[in-house]
């Protein structure tokens, strides 16, 4: 440690630049990972908030909520437990005077079922009367307020925002939670449709209808339009970024160590044990990478505070810690690569006669 710190202190510019590089790399990885995760979450936030384990959809819906319908007749064959709930889904465009229109997902829920009961609001109250909705915070961020009357698609009747809730996005679209009877009205098919799907906190909902099928919720999530493609794109992007960054850092540390060979030669001539040299090299890499990571983390936190809420960003501390540990480990590897060179350094060759 003595040598490691003394050297860093003496060569401020050189080591400063390397720390700077590590800061930028870790910042880049942290921010990208958080952005990717934020986007992934805005696909699934609402589904996660339901705590559902399974979903019943029409078997011809290709596991898509938008394509699924459960008719009144089919609904008669379903035995709902207290952990099951109907949802009626419809894509809508919400408009109100003076604010931007928003493409949203209308979800009709039944006030006697668990989704309605478990719905947590950040302000206002739940929809108790017809044509009342609870909206995702996206609406609030876009300038909609409690009591605002909104027009859905080209329907005659206006809806009133009576409450706001958080984490209510599905497939990136903000949700408007309303009554299932209003959903039937939006669909315009009268009362022949019971719902789009049944979500359940159980593994399975009890039903006997050949046209309906039960799916695990993860399967449903994976089939959200674009979700899997998006995720694998980001996963690969970040993985490549990680690997390349790690190689870059390792190469830099390698060069750094090689440049110090004359110093090692002096120490070897003096009989300083090889152990001390190796410890110094590793200590130095760890100090550099950890300083870089700490600054990178601070920058990431500042970014998270400063970034507009409309950009979804989500920090998964365990994942980011893993990334950080990966950086520390490869940097140790990077500095160990030239250890053979250090051990074989011939003082005479370097020092000369």
């Amino acid at each position, binding site marked *: 440690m003595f040598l490691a710190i003394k050297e860093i202190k003496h060569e401020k510019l050189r080591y400063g630049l390397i720390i700077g590089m590590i800061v930028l790399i870790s910042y880049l990885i942290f921010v990208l990972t958080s952005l990717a995760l934020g986007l992934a979450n805005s696909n699934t936030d609402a589904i996660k908030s339901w705590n559902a384990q399974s979903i019943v959809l029409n078997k011809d819906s290709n596991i898509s909520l938008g394509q699924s319908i459960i008719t009144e007749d089919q609904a008669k064959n379903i035995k709902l437990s207290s952990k099951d709930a109907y949802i009626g889904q419809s894509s809508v465009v919400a408009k109100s005077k003076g604010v931007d229109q928003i493409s949203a997902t209308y979800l009709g829920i039944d006030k006697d079922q668990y989704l309605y009961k478990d719905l947590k609001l950040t302000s206002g109250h739940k929809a108790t009367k017809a044509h009342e909705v609870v909206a995702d915070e996206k609406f609030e961020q876009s300038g909609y307020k409690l009591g605002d009357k909104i027009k859905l698609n080209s329907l005659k009747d206006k809806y009133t925002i009576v409450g706001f809730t958080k984490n209510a996005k599905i497939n990136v679209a903000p949700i408007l939670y309303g009554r299932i009877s209003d959903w039937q009205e939006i669909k315009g098919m009268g009362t022949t449709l019971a719902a789009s799907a049944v979500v359940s906190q159980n593994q399975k909902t009890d039903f006997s209808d050949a046209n309906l099928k039960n799916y695990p919720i993860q399967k449903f999530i994976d089939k959200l339009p674009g979700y899997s493609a998006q995720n694998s794109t980001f996963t690969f992007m970040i993985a490549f970024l990680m690997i390349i960054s790690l190689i870059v850092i390792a190469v830099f540390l390698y060069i750094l160590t090689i440049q110090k060979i004359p110093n090692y030669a002096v120490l070897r001539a003096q*009989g300083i044990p090889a152990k001390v040299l190796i410890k110094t090299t590793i200590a130095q890499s760890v100090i550099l990478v950890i300083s870089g990571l700490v600054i990178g983390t601070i920058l990431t936190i500042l970014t998270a505070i400063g970034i507009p809420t409309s950009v979804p960003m989500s920090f998964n501390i365990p994942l980011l810690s893993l990334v950080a540990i990966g950086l520390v480990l490869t940097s140790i590897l990077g500095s160990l690569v030239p250890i053979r060179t250090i051990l074989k350094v011939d003082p*005479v060759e370097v020092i000369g006669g």
Partner: protein
Amino acid sequence: MTTIKLTNINKTFGKGLSKVHVLHDINFEANKGELILVLGPSGSGKSTFLTITGGLQTPTSGTVELNGKSLTSASKKDLEKLRLDKIGFVLQSYNLLPYLNVREQFQLVDRVKKQGNLDKKRFDDLIMTLGIEDLLHKYPSELSGGQNQRVAIARALYTDPEIILADEPTAALDSDRVAEVGKMLQELAKEKNKAIVVVTHDLRLQNYADRIYHIIDGKMTEDKATTETKEATEQK
């Protein structure tokens, strides 16, 4: 007992046409209590001889013995320990770490060799003799060539080694300083019973040596004349 003994040392570099024979059948001895000078012109093989003696490089043939133990068969680790504990090296250049100030060069030694280094009083005496007491907070790049050399000498002596091997330690020093360093080395040999070998082309050191060897084109001969006159003067 002979402290340092080189027998039939040969050293060649390279292969085939580019092969150079740098040391030819060198036989050399040094004992405790002696200051020995190896004089020779540039390129004669002085540094090669000294680094072989200190175990920094291996001879092509021949044996090196320190205190009766063969260096040629010692492991790298043993050689390392030997250099740290028993040998004080003053190399021709590059003796100091650029990122430690003078005081820290000694602190580093304390960190790896916990015992047997000079105590405070002897250290203070040493840096006074070498005139580096005001340089303790300076970095090597802030020192002159001569100052660098004096710090290197102090560093080599700091571990209180039995054997001191110095390569041109006085090259960048003025005559007054050469006299002081010469006297100091002579005293160290006599009073502390150390074996000191200095290779140099600096004739100013001749007066302080107990014995002198000459090396020319890799061939070493002992200067019996000086040795005999010295013994004669000492007996009077």
